[in-house]
């Protein structure tokens, strides 16, 4: 028998450790989807404990109840309309005044609120216990002390959730939390009474406390007004607005400001009377070494460049074994050097897959060739492509998670904001930039941290210019083909590619913000800084694994399916299967490639080479590493470097074509994520065309320049 599981919402102010608590409860097994009709991420997980089972919903962080961002509005909507049995509002023992504000606003609205005070391991147990008891009595709301990291109080919280879920929704709210709104009380009560008289029955589903609803209505919150209109109708809403207008005239107060002030006053008194010594960490006043560096002129940019360089070298080492192979060969240990080159992480993976191909090929000897071909060159290649990305994605995700959990990432974003805002980005663009070095797919997804939808769109459109790992593989092959045996020139070309990629991405922000935004809308930043601390291994793992898994699901599937499509395009001509002995130049894919001939002729590429390059450019659209693997297939050579060399391109042609390949289009996995994030076919298409145009302008300029230099 399948039992309907009930839902529990988890909500809280920023930096209270909401995600940690959510992960501690669900064991990090969250499922990620989108909230209906939005691109806001929805995380749900199943909690199983001692015969209890329920669905936990991780609601986006809430700074208050006047939702500012799209994410916050989702949480708010859930509190008002969601189908939950309880809401766990999380507060932080180390910043009670601020975090209780959010918890109390929610408790005031929903009597099904449980307040969880996180980080209780930082204070003596008896002090915490006394405080929790006091708070629970004063707020008429269940309060539980927990420590998500030390796993304290989790059982008590689950028991409290179960108890709440089994209890009936009360219609008498007189035992609920009561905030004294002083001179506004009489208006709030008038509104409450009017709502009570016209009870439609609809609002009882989540048992919203009508006094809390009335107080939020007084703040002129448009979302609350809409909610009241939906439930009670426009006529009642108009009557309420009359009462509010009267309150404005009679009290001469700014109602919203007054209500927020009174709530904070309520909390301040509550804390003063509790006798709890306010816990203020010294680190709030003291500058740490990290603060000093970030604040020094140009410091944050230096740190940012340092992080980028470190990640760049990690990518390099994973793919090539460099610089270890060079060190060993300099020491005269040539054998070890070549071993490292063969067994770099990527070397190992590709060795594994070619072994698998051989094994499968032997196994399938009795089967028709076309099936064997599909399995080995289509499916195994596809899986291999996805797997070869995993180590790097995980590595970049881990570095990102360390920055994020320690609180450095937020400070970096703040420090770099001034520089980035000149390009139309807020400081938050550092997140997508760092992650994109591994793969653009999670980079585009990170645009969600933007404050406004326009800023977000600019980020989404500019992110795919950042060279990802796949493009590094292409650049490596080209650099070796263009400058054989000249490591210095090779390295310079690689650096040039990265510098161009980042500059174009920044420039793109500049162009887009100047054409889409007015001056006064330039990105601003207001953000609560988390305390700096050593990252917790468990939290780092949760963050990085959730990114890696999202990559596997989103990009993995696309890359895998498209590998099969590419195999089909290269293995079939219009008259049928040509794999095995037939030549690729008869295939459908090759025919498509010759469409690009006119473009390539601008680079003076002759008519026999142009369709080959055209074909690889189409392959590269599918997945960037396809740019060189397909070249190798067409030229019928194992080594892609040899394949590029045998095209007989001039250095000027090769370098400008390489630049074009680096910038010309987001790969299909990225395109699908751009669509997911913008939910707009128009902007997705724009992104593709926009990149092609920019790539052409830059590579053609480079070609002319390089020619004049005599290359």
């Amino acid at each position, binding site marked *: 028998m399948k039992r309907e599981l009930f839902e529990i919402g988890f909500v809280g102010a920023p930096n209270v450790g909401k995600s940690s608590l959510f992960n501690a409860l669900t064991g990090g097994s969250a499922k990620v989807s989108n909230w209906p009709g939005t691109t806001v991420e929805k995380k749900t997980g199943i909690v199983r404990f001692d015969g209890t089972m329920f669905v936990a919903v991780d609601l986006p962080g809430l700074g208050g109840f006047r939702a500012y961002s799209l994410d916050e509005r989702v949480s708010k909507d859930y509190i008002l309309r969601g189908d939950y049995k309880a809401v766990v509002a999380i507060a932080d023992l180390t910043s009670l005044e*601020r975090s209780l504000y959010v918890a109390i606003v929610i408790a005031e609205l929903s009597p099904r609120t449980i307040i969880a005070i996180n980080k209780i391991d930082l204070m003596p147990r008896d002090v915490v216990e006394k405080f929790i008891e006091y708070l629970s009595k004063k707020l008429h709301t269940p309060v539980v002390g927990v420590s998500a990291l030390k796993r304290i109080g989790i059982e008590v919280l689950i028991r409290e959730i179960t108890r709440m879920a089994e209890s009936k929704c009360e219609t008498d709210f007189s035992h609920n939390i009561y905030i004294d709104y002083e001179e506004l009380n009489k208006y709030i009560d008038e509104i409450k009474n009017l709502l009570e008289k016209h009870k439609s029955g609809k609002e009882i589903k989540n048992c919203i406390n009508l006094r809390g609803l009335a107080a939020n209505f007084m703040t002129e919150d448009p979302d609350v007004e809409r909610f009241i209109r939906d439930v009670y109708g426009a006529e009642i809403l108009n009557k309420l607005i009359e009462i509010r207008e009267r309150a404005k005239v009679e009290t001469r107060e700014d109602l*919203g400001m007054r209500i927020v002030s009174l709530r*904070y006053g309520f909390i301040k008194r509550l804390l003063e009377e509790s006798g709890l010594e306010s816990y203020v960490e010294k680190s709030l006043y003291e500058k740490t070494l990290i603060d000093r560096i970030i604040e020094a002129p140009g410091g944050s940019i230096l740190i940012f460049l340092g992080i980028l360089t470190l990640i760049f070298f990690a990518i390099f080492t994973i793919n090539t074994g460099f610089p270890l192979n060079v060190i060993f060969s300099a020491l005269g240990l040539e054998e070890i050097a070549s071993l490292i080159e063969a067994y770099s992480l990527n070397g190992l993976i590709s060795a594994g897959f070619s072994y698998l191909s051989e094994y499968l090929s032997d196994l399938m000897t009795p089967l028709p060739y076309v099936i064997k071909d599909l399995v080995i060159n289509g499916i195994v290649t596809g899986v291999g492509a996805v797997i070869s990305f995993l180590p790097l994605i995980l590595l970049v995700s881990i570095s990102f998670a360390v920055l994020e959990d320690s609180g450095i990432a937020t400070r970096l974003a*703040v420090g770099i904001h001034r520089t980035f*805002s000149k390009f139309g980005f807020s400081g938050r663009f550092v997140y997508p930039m760092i992650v994109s070095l591994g793969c653009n797919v999670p980079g585009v997804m990170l645009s969600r941290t933007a404050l406004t939808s326009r800023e977000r769109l600019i980020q989404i459109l500019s992110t795919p210019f950042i060279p990802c790992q796949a493009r590094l593989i292409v650049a490596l092959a080209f650099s070796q083909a263009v400058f054989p045996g000249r490591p210095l020139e090779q390295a310079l070309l690689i650096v040039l590619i990265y510098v161009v990629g980042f500059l174009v991405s920044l420039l793109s922000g500049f162009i887009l913000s100047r054409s889409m935004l007015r001056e006064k809308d330039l990105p601003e930043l207001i953000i609560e800084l988390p305390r700096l601390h050593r990252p917790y291994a468990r939290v780092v793992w949760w963050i990085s694994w959730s990114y890696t898994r999202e990559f596997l699901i989103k990009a993995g599937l696309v890359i895998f399916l498209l590998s099969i499509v590419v195999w089909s395009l290269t293995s079939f001509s219009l008259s049928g299967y040509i794999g095995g002995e037939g030549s690729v130049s008869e295939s459908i894919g090759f025919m498509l490639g010759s469409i690009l001939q006119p473009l390539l002729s601008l680079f003076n590429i002759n008519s026999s080479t142009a369709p080959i390059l055209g074909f690889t450019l189409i392959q590269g659209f599918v997945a960037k590493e396809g740019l060189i693997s397909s070249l190798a297939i067409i030229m019928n050579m194992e080594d892609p470097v040899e394949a590029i060399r045998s095209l007989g391109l001039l250095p000027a042609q090769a370098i400008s074509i390489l630049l074009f390949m680096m910038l010309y289009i987001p790969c299909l996995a990225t395109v699908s994520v751009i669509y997911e994030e913008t939910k707009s076919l128009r902007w997705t298409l724009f992104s593709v065309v926009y990149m092609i145009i920019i790539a052409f302008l830059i590579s053609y300029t480079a070609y002319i320049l390089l020619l004049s230099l005599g290359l």
Partner: protein
Amino acid sequence: MGVNYTSLDLASPLKRYRIIDIEAGRGLREKILEMGMTPGSEIRVIRNARGHIIVLVRGVSIAISRGIAKKIILETLE
């Protein structure tokens, strides 16, 4: 004239301040208020850097870019 007004972007880490008003538009104003920067509350400037100001309000440090800081009106105490 004992009372001395300034906006947050001009505030110094050496003095104590009280918030008087938030002159931002709807939405942003509510966000600032709900972060705890309500009129009458004390605010401490931890740092006034070139691009942003870091303040301490109700036990939380908040980074605010200059454009927004201009809209937060303070009264100098002492």
